[in-house]
């Protein structure tokens, strides 16, 4: 079981308290009704599914209930960092492999 640091609670808690919520930094258009088919496809259907570093959303559902973002390596399952929802994609990753 993974330990995940909740950026709101500011501590590591067991994975059981969390739920994954898919890829992060996919913003919903403020004019979604006017979006082209291609843009809507990208927004709704297309995901990166990388081997390696992924930016994803988690929810501390059995804790503070907040959604937040995490950077995780899909190969090692290691969490590189977590940060609050709404914060920009980190430019530099601490301790990331390469």
């Amino acid at each position, binding site marked *: *079981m993974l330990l995940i640091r909740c950026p709101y609670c500011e501590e590591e808690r067991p994975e059981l308290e969390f739920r994954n919520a898919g890829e992060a930094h996919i913003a919903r258009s403020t004019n979604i009704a006017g979006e082209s*088919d291609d843009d809507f496809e990208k927004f709704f259907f297309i995901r990166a599914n990388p081997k390696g570093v992924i930016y994803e959303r988690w*929810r501390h559902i059995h804790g503070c209930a907040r959604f937040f973002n995490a950077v995780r390596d899909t190969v090692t399952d290691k969490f590189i960092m977590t940060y609050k*929802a*709404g914060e920009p994609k980190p430019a530099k990753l601490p301790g990331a492999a390469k």
Partner: protein
Amino acid sequence: MSAAFRISGAGRLSQAKTASFSFDDKSYSGIEGDTLASALLANGVHLVGRSFKYHRPRGFLSAGAEEPNALVQVVRDDARKTPNVRATVQELYDGLTANSQNRWPSLAFDVGAVNDIASPLFSAGFYYKTFMWPKWAWKDLYEPKIRAAAGLGVSPEKPDPDHYASRYTHCEVLVLGGGAAGIAAALAAAETGVRVILADEQAEFGGSLRFESGAKIDGQDGYAWAQGAIARLKAMDNVRVLSRTTAFGYYAQNFVGLVERVSDHLRSPGRELARERLWQIRANRVVIATGAIERHMVFANNDRPGVMLASAARTYLNHYGVAVGRNVGVYTANDSAYAAAIDLKKAGVNVAAIVDLRDNPSGPVIDEARALGIEINFGRAVVSAGGKLRVSSMTVQPKNGGGERTIPVDAILMSAGWTPSVHLFSQSRGKVAFNDETRRFVPGTYAQDCVSVGACNGTDGLDATIDEAYAAGAKAAKEAGGKVGKGAKPKVDAGESWSRGMLGAGPGAGPGTTVKAFVDFQNDVTAKDIRQAVHEGMHSIEHVKRFTTNGMATDQGKTSNMHGLAIAAEELGKPIPQVGLTTFRAPYTPVTFGSIVGHARGALFDPTRRTATHGWAASQGAVFEDVGHWKRAWYFPKAGEDMHKAVDRECVTVRKVGGLFDASTLGKIEVVGPDAAKFMELLYTNPWEKLEAGRCRYGIMLREDGFIYDDGVVGRLAPDRFHVTTTTGGAPRVMNHMEDYLQTEFPHLNVWLTSITEQWAVIAVQGPKSRDIIAPLVEGIDMSDEGMPHMSVREGRICGVPTRLFRMSFTGERGFEVNVPADYGEAVWEALWAEGQKHGATAYGTEAMHVLRAEKGYIIVGQDTDGTVTPNDAGLDWAVGKKKTDFVGIRGLTRSDLVAKGRKQLVGLKTKDPKVVLEEGAQIVADPKQPIPMKMIGHVTSSYWSENCGRSIALALVAGGRNRMGETLYVPMPNGTIEVEVIGMVFVDEKGERLNG
């Protein structure tokens, strides 16, 4: 009387404490502290099982967890019959009953052994090649036959009556393995004051000190030192010592799963003791001290009972006081088997000969063996073992060929060298590295905060092991925040040391031979099978493994992996590391389902949620159904009523008079704040801004893809306060969906969401008399049609307690839903029930609720929709705000597929024969005479007998359904095709007049 092969003066067990046991219905006597294996060996019993594929007679290979052969069934009673128990691990208790497996009619005469004679038919990949055709035969013929023939052991006939405990804990340093290395590491760590847990799979600590008679530490015999050290560790407050505890899985971030066998070794465990305890330990640092496992030699008939690992024979002698034979032969490729020969010789056992594959080895153990007068043959090989149910001889030949000599023996002790147990290291995702000099895989690159010490790290020699382990224990503790320890490192006065050996097949079993030289005993894989796999194109060890099943049995190839790998590498002409090692996976040894499940079974498997009126409903004889975690009253049968009669009566009474229904399980969410209406506009298809306070609206929630996600009636209590209801099953996911959008997409909205499902009990009162039933109990609410029209909500009091009173209907009748604080739910229900009785109202359950709503064509999300249904498909276009510029799903609704013609639409179905009730899920076709496979154009989503209509009714999703009104369609069923007519969805009161009736 002492058993025939028990040697007085040898071993550590007290001869006074005898324990009787039975094996295959024959009684024997053993000693407390024995394993089933040592007790059988003490009685001269070697034959204990038949092999999986060839049904060959098998004995004991080992004295530990790596045992592939001696698998038995241990029987306590009808419910406690454990198959595939390793006799080398099962501790003896007085009265133990064990049986052999995979034999018929008896162990000594097994009909299945015909497979051995026919073995050329069963070579590697046999199943893949033979049972390929005809295609149908696999399921109906081959698989059942193979399963019947190959099963090991039998299942108990009753549910497991034992209970299994579970513990989570943390520590700074977790030490896995309690041999010399593990104990030294634990001592060093414990002395720093940090929390330490030391676990070992055996009943007693000491590891290989159990058999290494040459070890001396701190002036004591090695095993005695280990017991003293364990006693010291147990006395420390910061140390937990777990024996009989196997670390079976090493997971992320130093999370280790262990199983403690609490009572399998006891005669009468008693109900207060769990059978096993699952430990889930998170450690700051892990020290892996799992030792090494001796390998067997690969030669013809190396599986005959009596052929075993040299260290096993030594363990049986030095720990259990049991001689594995009276006249043993030794076959080795390294020094360690010499020590076994020396110990046995000294105990009075004749050692017929040592056969050493090496040309001119030298060393103290060789000198000592020679001095004891043991015949030693260098540069020679055992090419075959004689005998069938027990080994009777070994045939010796110079390793490069030449004259054979047959030596009579009753046991062969073999050692091809030692394989470091890197299983847990590998599970931790560490990468092993091949050491070319010592030809073994050892820990290479670490992935977690752990360290391997001793034999599992490829460290040879007791002195070096203790040095390394003690330093590692101290370092781990320091890194985890420990202080500097005050203890002294254990001093090694004498130790044993060996390494090297050989990998792969020995002489006589090499390329071109067809002898049965076993690599994997448990899965009956021979050296020839591995070579054949390579010849047939399996060039990766992962493919060789799957093709031959080498290493895939429950022992996971603890003794076989390296031999198999070496043979494949030789055949491929590649170095071993290029062929690669298969990945080790949890569990290290088999784990019972019971220990994983723990207490989470039966009533404790899942939480049960009960509504406030549950007790009342139960007292009325309600039959309950499970809806998610909820128990809901399904129907309320009166004396003599079956389900149909009860539901018919409930449905008719509701429409004639009235009925009470517990709707508490519906999800309820309060949406509060200055931007509450804006938020509702975004989350639901409907318009909300203009809904007046005190009014209700049926809302539809979509996902972004445009499909219906949930629905429910929403009441606006105040401009900034909505009382939202959801489906019963959808409550948590709707809450999550709302929170997700509020927190991440619309965080600028000032809104609070609160789940209030459990705070409010909900009593639906429906039917023409509903107002008459409620009104006498209500204060402060004008209940006239003008004061409280259909689809309105009022706050006031009922029976003196606060209520949110909704006027709404899921039956099509005049109806109310009375929300009261859950604590008052039962009392208010009883008061309403008393009023209802005056009018002849009924209590009704979920089945009648379903029928009544279907009569009105009201959908149930998740039954009439399936995640691919749009509001338009469901005939609910009116609920989508046409002027809205944004809501979740607005863009999805305009996707080309969602606006295409011919989509499946919800319609009503009327069977031509009104008495026929369709099956929910049944498929619908336009032409029943078309050839199979037919084109299916839809399916039945809801179907009931409607007593109110006097006929069956159904809802269905049908392609282009609304354009098919009046068409006849067909529902092909196993007993014939049912004709149906497509009609509208409303079966009762199409004009909706009864809502105010």
